[in-house]
């Protein structure tokens, strides 16, 4: 079976970016004022700070970090020993994780959309929650659960074997895969949504078995699968939480840990860290190129006015139970286990300490209010983190939407490919690189003395947090934005609407929930962010993640865990509040159609 050959890629089956709406005449103007402003913003947010950092790879003297204006010595120094091992480990782990995440996400999306599996409304919601949980919280929770004399042990379950396995490559791959699944899921689910049952039916009519049907149908959503592979790969490459915890404890070096290690000694070796950062960014080029190459060879347009809603397969009872349990297992690994570990752990006295019995306590929660370290309560840091979250999520949402529109209005061109590589490369940049890059750029005499002195202020921290969230947010929004038909806005304009009114009455209702969930994603990511915040927070204005870290680092694990639980509960309350507000404020029509490109 061959796919329909048309000149226009589909807006729905295509992943974010590739396969967006046809270019409009306005989009063909390569260097419009809007494009220039957008790239200026990106320069200020990402390109200049990260550029300063990676310049150190060959020119440490430029920033007074060495004596050479040009040297290749640090490249050679990076590509050997444990640093090289870390890079190679990250590459193969990220590849395995990307394949596993896309396979699991595709299976889940198919089960939820195409079968009568139980909990079809619950699983996508939980997928959102999974997307919001950072890997370090996941690891911390599993650690609390499985460690000797930990939460599971307190419940009478022997976890010795599991603990040994978890703190090794197996655990690393499991945690990173569960963290990457939501990224892949939302892309693949959007692709499957536009795929009617007629392709499966056609294959079956021609005598295909189940495998043959899969072989026929899956290539149709290849752009979505490749896009999901690329984002899963990039997210995994940049992850630091798992590399620092599970990777370190199991003597399994990874690239982000090697980068951290290069700058954790004094004097820090920023040049080696810069070479590793370049490798991380460059590693995202092959997936993008592969995606681009595959999608250029043929069209994947399958959505038309005749596309029918897919029929659900009625699973047999045992298969239905098995499929539901399988999905439940994925969420138990990603959410249930860590949540159980953290919550139980915060109520067990002296967690992890050899003892004859289990003693429950609420003392750690009391200590959150009355801290053992003077003046270090969670109250005002959490308020500040929430304020930061609101501002950063709002700014990122606005910028991300405009950037996504630019991205999808230039399909197939070099501009789009460069933007795509830039965005995915930025996803692969660890927070510490962005944080230190911000110091190098914004603390330059030229900037700080002659232009604007922002270093160690809240506005600069906000800029860095926006920069950290923007690439992921843009790629996240690009899919739904690509599905907006320009004709809707044009029709509104023809009827006399201003540009703003046209957008508000046609596009906004269609993407309203995407904007809401994107906002929540950035909000929670901002509250949980540590690496950037630790480097750039203004003196005496400490956000929650830094406070929690100071307790965990001081081996006050009970208090630190209780603070983590309170922060997670608070984040969930904000999510609930935001959804309730949407329900209260959004017109009924928005709520019915605002799911474009995203399901829940």
């Amino acid at each position, binding site marked *: 079976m061959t796919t329909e050959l048309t000149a226009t890629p589909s807006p729905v089956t295509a992943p974010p970016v590739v396969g967006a709406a046809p270019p409009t005449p306005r989009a063909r103007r390569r260097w419009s004022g809007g494009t220039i402003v957008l790239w200026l913003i990106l320069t200020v947010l990402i390109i200049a700070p990260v550029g300063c950092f990676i310049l150190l790879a060959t020119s440490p003297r430029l920033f*007074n970090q060495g004596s050479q204006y040009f040297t290749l010595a640090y490249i050679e120094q990076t590509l050997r020993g444990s640093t090289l091992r870390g890079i190679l480990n990250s590459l193969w782990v990220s590849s395995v994780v990307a394949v596993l995440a896309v396979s699991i996400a595709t299976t889940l999306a198919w089960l939820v959309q195409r079968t009568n599996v139980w909990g079809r409304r619950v699983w996508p919601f939980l997928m959102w929650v999974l997307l919001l949980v950072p890997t370090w919280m996941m690891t911390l929770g599993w650690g609390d659960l499985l460690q000797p004399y930990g939460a599971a042990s307190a419940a009478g379950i022997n976890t010795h074997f599991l603990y040994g396995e978890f703190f090794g490559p197996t655990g690393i791959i499991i945690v990173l895969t569960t963290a990457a699944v939501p990224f892949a899921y939302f892309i693949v689910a959007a692709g499957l949504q536009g795929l009617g049952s007629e392709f499966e039916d056609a294959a079956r009519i021609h005598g295909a078995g189940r495998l043959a049907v899969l072989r026929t149908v899956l290539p149709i959503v290849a752009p979505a699968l490749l896009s999901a592979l690329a984002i899963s790969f990039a997210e995994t490459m940049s992850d630091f939480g798992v590399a620092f915890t599970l990777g370190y404890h199991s003597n399994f070096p990874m690239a982000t840990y090697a980068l951290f290690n290069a700058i954790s000694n004094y004097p820090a070796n920023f040049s080696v860290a810069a070479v590793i950062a370049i490798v991380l960014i460059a590693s995202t080029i092959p997936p993008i190129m592969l995606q681009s190459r595959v999608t250029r060879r043929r069209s994947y347009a399958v959505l038309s006015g005749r596309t029918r809603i897919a029929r659900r397969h009625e699973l047999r009872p045992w298969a239905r139970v098995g499929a539901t349990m399988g999905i439940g297992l994925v969420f138990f690994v990603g959410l249930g286990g860590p949540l159980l570990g953290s919550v139980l752990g915060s109520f067990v006295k002296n967690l*992890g*300490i050899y003892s004859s019995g289990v003693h429950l306590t609420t003392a750690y929660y009391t200590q959150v209010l009355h801290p053992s370290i003077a003046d270090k309560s969670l109250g005002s840091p959490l308020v500040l983190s929430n304020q930061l979250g609101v501002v950063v999520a709002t700014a990122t949402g606005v910028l991300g939407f405009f950037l996504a529109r630019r991205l999808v209005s230039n399909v197939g061109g070099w501009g789009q490919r460069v933007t795509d590589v830039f965005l995915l490369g930025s996803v692969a940049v660890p927070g510490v690189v962005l944080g230190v890059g911000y110091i190098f750029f914004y603390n330059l005499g030229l900037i700080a003395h002659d232009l604007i002195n922002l270093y160690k202020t809240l506005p600069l921290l906000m800029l860095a947090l926006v920069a950290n969230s923007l690439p992921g947010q843009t790629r996240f929004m690009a899919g739904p934005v690509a599905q907006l038909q320009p004709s809707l806005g044009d029709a509104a304009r023809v009827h006399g609407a201003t540009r703003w009114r046209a957008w508000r009455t046609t596009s906004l209702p269609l993407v309203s929930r995407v904007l809401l969930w994107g906002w929540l994603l950035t909000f929670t990511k901002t509250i949980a962010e540590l690496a950037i915040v630790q480097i750039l927070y203004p003196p005496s204005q400490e956000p929650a993640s830094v406070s929690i870290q100071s307790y965990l680092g001081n*081996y006050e694990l009970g208090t630190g865990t209780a603070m983590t639980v309170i922060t997670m509960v608070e984040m969930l309350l904000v999510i609930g509040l935001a959804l309730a507000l949407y329900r209260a404020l959004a017109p009924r029509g928005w709520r019915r159609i605002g799911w474009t490109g995203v399901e829940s």
Partner: protein
Amino acid sequence: MLRGAAATCVVASLGLVATNVGASPKATGPTLVVYSAQGYDKAAVAAFNKTNPGFNVTLNDNSTGPLLQQIQAEGHNPKWGILWVDGATAFAALDQQHMLATHIVPKANFNAVGKANIPADGSYVPVSMTATGALVYDSAQIKPSQLPKTWAQLATSKYAHDLGMNDPTQSGPTYPLIAGLMNYLGHYKSGSTASAIKAGEAYLAKLKRLGLVINATNGPTIGAIQAHTIKMAIVQSSAGYGQEISSLPSLRVAYLTPVTALPGVIGIDRLMPQAVQNEARKFVAWVLSPAGQHVMKTGDPQGDSLFWPVLNGESASNKVIPPIASVPMQTINPYVWGPLETSINNWFTANVNNG
């Protein structure tokens, strides 16, 4: 109606948040920023501001690693006015790069240990003292009479798989411990450190062969004792005392001869304007005053407050801490051992941690 009211609330809240978050603390006069990794630093800065009207000292509270990273990245355009962390090696390196103001030591009644840790050019000030390389053990697992008496005895098969320590690339106090071991085992006095390093490396390699367990920091290392994975560990004294008085009463601290002095040290940024440097000197003098020492001893009672004072007439904050005279303490030269930190840590990573 309801929708309109709710929308107004949302817009008003967003505006309020944006206004609040954009506002900085009220600043009058020069702004001294303290970069500190001490548990009691927030209490100290708050107390100083309270008792010194007109001052607005602010705090960057972080681990030692991120603080030094920031100082290095800031380069010739620094924001820090004071650096306050444990261990003198980083200060020696900063002094060698001419980044510290000199002769900043205020008049104070230093005791012998305090005096031994003041550099000749007065570029940093010891304000507290702990020991690194303290033998922290679980008395429920191993009796005091069964403990090794010397460093040589510790590296015998009798204690195979019983011992743990931290990773020097992750734990600030651990490099001074390793440097101290090399200093002692190589009988280092002056000149080349090559033979001392060799002796220390051989010793650590032997410990590794005997099943030395490496964890990142004090937390997991003492956690390994608490979980009965190991029986004892060589760490910073305050970490042992902290757990003894909180979560594990059977934990005890012993001292092999010698352990290495790990002073809590303050240095002042030479590139700051004179007004800020003057403010910093006042802050240092306050830290060494009875009021400052009181805040240090009460601000983090289960952690960094468990130090020995470096001033005559001051006593430790908790009875669990023995008199400093009873602790066999050596002081290493930070100007000799400081510059070797990266190469020795790299050796440790390759041969002990990953070996």
